[in-house]
């Protein structure tokens, strides 16, 4: 009897996880290969990415890739998605067997890529990393296109410095501790607070990218009656939660108001908040790597060489007083 129950449970769990997979693939389309109708001079690329459902950043990144690597642009692209490193490696092996010209990779994990990339090299497949770096010898890939999170933090802190407040009392809401985005964005602010006595942190707490937690953290500061004039949230969701707490307590925020609100990631809705002048600043984390990759492939195909291996993307910071509707449409993710 017990055994039967266990079997039933595992079967139902499996069935359910299948449904789960079905959901994911119905929106993303797992391993869809473009038909190679015109053949011949198309450049074959195999693209390995994380699941587009992971975040708004990833969704925008995947859309950008799909828009760039089309037959009209001279590419024959195959896509594979996974958040698991071993599945990504399997996909990479398949692409190498299929004889792609380029392997574009956003690795789920930094480790474990050496052998498969050596296989790629032996088979004459050129590898380009995007968004994430890996722990492997630089000889194994042609280029890596990444964001510089520390620079994102510096851009934001420099912007804040330019606001010329007589005193900076900052509520600092951090992302998941230890993540690259958290470390980069925290580092710049910490350095500034340590260097300038006019700057102080009212509180420095992690809300783990969670709007509700951010709301409670800010609520707690409001309840304590401590004064603050800047909210530095390390992503848009948390800034939104913070603003919800401000709204409840009648603390005005935005351009020319009591509290400066800063977010990161440039979600479209966040940029609209900037446009409405409810927030002051949003820092970009650029998901649009396709054009950089395209340029690299064109250079390599024409026999040129790349000046550097690691290419850091341009990332903007948007100021609510200068942002336009065009910016929202072009940079919102």
């Amino acid at each position, binding site marked *: 009897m017990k055994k039967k129950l266990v079997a039933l449970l595992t079967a139902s*769990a499996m069935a359910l996880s299948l449904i*789960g997979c079905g*959901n994911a693939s*119905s929106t993303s389309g797992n391993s869809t290969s473009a038909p190679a109708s015109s053949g011949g001079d198309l450049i074959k690329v195999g693209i390995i990415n994380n699941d587009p*459902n992971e975040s708004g950043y990833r969704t925008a990144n995947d859309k950008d890739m799909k828009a760039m690597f089309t037959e009209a642009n001279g590419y024959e692209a195959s896509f594979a998605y996974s958040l698991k490193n071993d599945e990504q490696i399997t996909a990479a092996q398949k692409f190498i067997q299929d004889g792609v010209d380029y392997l574009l990779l956003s690795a789920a994990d930094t480790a474990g890529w050496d052998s498969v990339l050596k296989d790629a090299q032996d088979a004459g497949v050129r590898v380009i990393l995007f968004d994430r770096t890996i722990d492997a010898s630089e000889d194994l890939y042609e280029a890596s296109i990444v964001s510089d999170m520390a620079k994102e933090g510096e851009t934001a802190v420099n912007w804040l410095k330019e606001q010329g407040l007589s005193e900076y009392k900052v509520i600092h809401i951090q992302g998941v501790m230890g993540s690259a985005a958290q470390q980069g964005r925290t580092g710049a602010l910490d350095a500034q607070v340590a260097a300038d006595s006019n700057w102080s942190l009212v509180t420095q707490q992690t809300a783990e990218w*969670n709007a509700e937690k951010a709301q409670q953290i800010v609520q707690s500061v409001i309840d304590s009656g401590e004064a603050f004039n800047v909210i530095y949230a390390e992503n848009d969701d948390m800034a*939104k939660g913070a603003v*919800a707490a401000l709204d*409840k307590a009648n603390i*005005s925020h935005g351009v020319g108001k009591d509290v400066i609100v800063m977010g990161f990631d440039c979600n479209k809705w966040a940029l609209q908040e900037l446009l409405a002048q409810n927030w002051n600043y949003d820092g970009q984390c650029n998901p649009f790597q396709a054009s950089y990759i395209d340029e690299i492939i064109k250079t390599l195909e024409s026999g040129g060489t790349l000046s550097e291996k690691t290419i850091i993307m341009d990332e903007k910071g948007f100021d609510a007083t200068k942002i336009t509707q065009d910016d929202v449409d072009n940079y919102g993710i």
Partner: protein
Amino acid sequence: MQKNNVLTRLMRNQIFIPVAALILLAIFNLIMDPSFFKITLGYNSVGNPVLSGYLITILDYGSELAILAIGMTLVTAASGGQDISVGATIAISGSVVLRVLCGTNSRPETLQAPIIVAFLISCVAAMLFGAFNGVLVAYFKIQPMVATLILFTAGRSIAAWINNNELPIISDPVFGYFGGFIPGIPIPTPFFIAVACMIVIALVLRFTNLGLYTQAVGINENSSKLNGLNPAFIKFLTFVILGLCVAVAALIKVSRISSINYSVIAKDIEMDAILAVALGGNALSGGKFNMAASILGAYVIQFLTTTLYKFNVQSDALPAYKAVVVIILVVMSTPVVRSWLSEAGKKIKGRTSQKAKEVA
């Protein structure tokens, strides 16, 4: 002698545990910083009166947990296990609300459906998912924690799928009332919603046999069957009721920020809900329960959370503090410690007349 009896009776009462915890926390705050208890009346950004202060924050943010504690207490009592999928089903239910309100456009200028319709549909959805859990537990006799593990794992993906993984945002201020303030009323709405749920469950327990039946099933399934009850159906029913509680909590959650983030909304709330039941002195192995104690337990947890935030404890360390509370509670409720305590008590009082009362 008389006094002593009152005291022991009080100690024996289940609600003593959360009340004692509440008093301990209150005294701690009173000593550390009496301004904790200050409540001020102010005006919010649209000019409506609002009360603010730590105590109001506790009533406000503890509400979802209190509502969940109602359903979780029933599930615990009947099935002797817990539902760990409530966080994930809150994501689903919240996603349904936003989906109905937004229609196909994720940033609607006007709501596509009345809020009450969206809420009712989300209730149906949440109760269906509750029923799914209930069927697995009641009819397939799967361990509740294992059965609900399925939705715990898959729920947030389902929630994302309901909205095509888009991020709907509601701009209509009326939707924000459920997680904020109704104009003119200075007390946060979630508290009223929680009170309404408490009244409903109090009436249900008073005028129906639900309480009696769930306890009967939880204490001894076979004897309740011999007495003409249908244990499977009663277990199933408690999961459906929990589904309803989830839908109400989800409405408050999505209303708070007029949006949703599938991966983090109501994260780890199932653990707090189970802790509320345990803090209420209810046996996690099922049987007798005290609803008021569970609800009070939920507010005690929020009291603890708010206190920790006040003292700037790193928010990722909060679970560790809650874990300490759980450990103390669980150890205190083990038979070994209980008998040891009652032995010690007997020695101190020098009396032997106390009959050992079985609570577990």
